[in-house]
């Protein structure tokens, strides 16, 4: 570095800056015409599939360029977006939020901008449950859905007919992997299996009863996982022989020859979904509406099911998915999580759950 003198460095730096300035002047009219959108999605395989299959199709259909941004997940991302909004500059126009996180963002206020419902006619293909309105208007539209499923090692145990079988210590002693977070929908499974479903969450006594029932499964749990990869490794290494895990990943693992089988027991599996939400600081409302309209189309929903492994938000009959393709990503019955209760009583549920896990 010492060979290069300061003056020449400055000179070359200024010429680079000059070039950049010149090109921006030349390029300005072009850029004004070029429309673009920054879209967040969960990193890894998920984001890669979006970049490979969905965004190019969208750009081809509308001419709007997409810049992909990696989100770690939705709860963490809400913290990032809250701080970014306070700072006055956000990393994405559209973000992908789980329903609970979206409602939370709506309650925090000032983070999301209402979407133009008229510009998104394709959303009528979906169940209205997936189009979320708050007092400001439509703030989130379903992007795709996913199940967390009962999984077992078919070499070790027979297919259970009910979630209740996981409580049987003669079969599953120290052999299950369940999610550690209070809101990872295991409590919804308990509610659907032994109680009155989401209704049970409406009172404190109901929540305590749910957590006490969950406590009875503790001797059978070898792993309370917090990161997806922990559960994947534990199933692959046969550290455990059953548990609760993502349906699409389980099916992919089974295709790769690992001893894992996803099961829809008679109570069903919890279904969660992600929504596209527009940042309040974004000026790309029109582009965002076009993108959401595009992904709400049954053909694109089917494309995502095939390429990304998500469950479609439109009925199977509207898509061209075969029964086999549909069963790979979806199933029935579906357990709908008690989203509102998880927010209204979040401190209470979290602490009661953590206490149960800690035996405190």
């Amino acid at each position, binding site marked *: 570095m010492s060979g290069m003198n300061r003056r020449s460095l400055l000179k070359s730096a200024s010429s680079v800056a000059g070039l950049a300035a010149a090109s921006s002047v030349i390029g300005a009219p072009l850029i004004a015409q070029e429309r673009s959108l920054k879209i967040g999605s969960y990193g890894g395989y998920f984001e890669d599939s979006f970049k490979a299959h969905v965004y190019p199709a969208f750009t081809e259909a509308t001419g709007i360029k997409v810049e992909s941004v990696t989100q770690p997940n939705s709860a963490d991302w809400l913290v990032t977006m809250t701080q970014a909004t306070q700072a006055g500059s956000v990393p994405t126009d559209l973000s992908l939020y789980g329903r609970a996180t979206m409602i939370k963002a709506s309650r925090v206020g000032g983070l999301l901008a209402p979407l133009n419902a008229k510009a998104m006619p394709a959303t009528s293909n979906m169940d209205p449950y997936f189009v979320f309105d708050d007092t400001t208007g439509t703030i989130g539209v379903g992007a795709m859905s996913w199940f967390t499923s009962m999984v077992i090692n078919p070499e070790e145990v027979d297919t259970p007919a009910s979630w209740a079988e996981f409580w049987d210590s003669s079969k599953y002693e120290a052999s299950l992997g369940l999610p550690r977070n209070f*809101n990872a929908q295991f409590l919804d499974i308990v509610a659907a299996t032994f109680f009155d479903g989401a209704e049970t969450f409406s009172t404190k006594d109901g929540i305590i009863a749910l957590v006490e029932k969950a406590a009875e499964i503790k001797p059978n749990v070898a792993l*309370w996982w917090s990161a997806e990869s*922990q559960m994947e490794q534990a199933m692959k290494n046969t*550290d455990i022989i059953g548990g609760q895990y993502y349906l699409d990943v389980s099916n992919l693992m089974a295709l790769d020859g690992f001893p894992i089988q996803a099961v829809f027991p008679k109570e069903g599996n919890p279904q969660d979904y992600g929504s596209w939400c527009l940042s309040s600081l974004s000026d790309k409302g029109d582009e965002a509406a076009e993108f959401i309209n595009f992904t709400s189309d049954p053909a694109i929903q089917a494309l995502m099911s095939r390429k990304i492994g998500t469950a479609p938000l439109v009925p199977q009959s509207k898509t061209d998915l075969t029964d086999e393709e549909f069963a790979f990503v979806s199933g029935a019955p579906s357990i709908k999580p008690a989203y509102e209760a998880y927010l209204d009583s979040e*401190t*209470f549920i*979290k602490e009661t759950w953590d206490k149960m896990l800690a*035996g405190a």
Partner: protein
Amino acid sequence: MSAVSDPEILANSAPTARSRLADLSLSQLVIWGLILFLCLSPFALIIAVSFGEKIEGASWEWGFSLVNYQRVFVGANWPEEVTFLYLQNLYYSLYYAVFAAVIAVLLAFPFTYLMTGLSRRAQSAWLVFILSSLSLSEVFIVMGWDVLLSNRSGLPMVFKETGLTAWLKEVGWFDTLREWGLANPRNVKFKTSVFATVLTMSYLVWPYAVILLYPPLSRMDRSMIEAAQTMGAGPWTVMRTVILPSVRLPLFGATLLLFVFLLGVYVAVSVFAEPAKQTMAVSVYSAVRGATLNAPFGAAQAVILLITASVFLVLGQWMSRRASA
């Protein structure tokens, strides 16, 4: 220390200190201001956040409430219900850190002692090797041990293949292992357990222990040992009466430093510790970045953890000062 308390020196140093302050140039003041800002502002921010108020179902807002500190001690549903969940977390923070720090120092001490007896060349080779192992992050180390302890490719596989598992079942010790949570009906299992957590944490800080113990051990006067040996002392007596007393303080200091460092370990605990034995660092993270967005409660726990660490450091300082006096 006694020199400073000498009144004459104190009297002389006062004016010089004042003139030095006047000598401080603007740039020095800026540098000091920057250092103070960078060191103190994160702490100030955490303390300020810890008094914030949680809005149920949403985020939190600035405020002045002691409710987060109260929750650390008695839980959120006080006074209807009392829970020591968070104090239990704090207890396990201390528990893992003490054991892992002591084990790491105990294992590093003989190693470092033998290493200082080697040739210069061998010593520097070892030091370079140990320093380079520090480049492995906590995540890598945890991943490594995760594989080493897993059923299909790790230690339990060795147990099964060598017939050790079958033998344990035969003699009946297997049921004892099951009671301790170190086996399922099929094979032994080491995850999740205190064993795996402490093992990984000691492994994590062992290179630091060697690096901390190397300077005092290499400076130690070998002629004292030789003198003791010529006077007929056996190896154990030499260790007890010559070596250990001369490195007592560095040993204690290294343990204390590693202990404080280990209080904040996150990955090893969240992967290897069972949910009943999680630490405060994990609890802080789940409050701040978890679904509840309860940064004030996370900050209050962080402040308590900080105070605990400071108390131990001050106690340690006091004890070592007493010992050296």
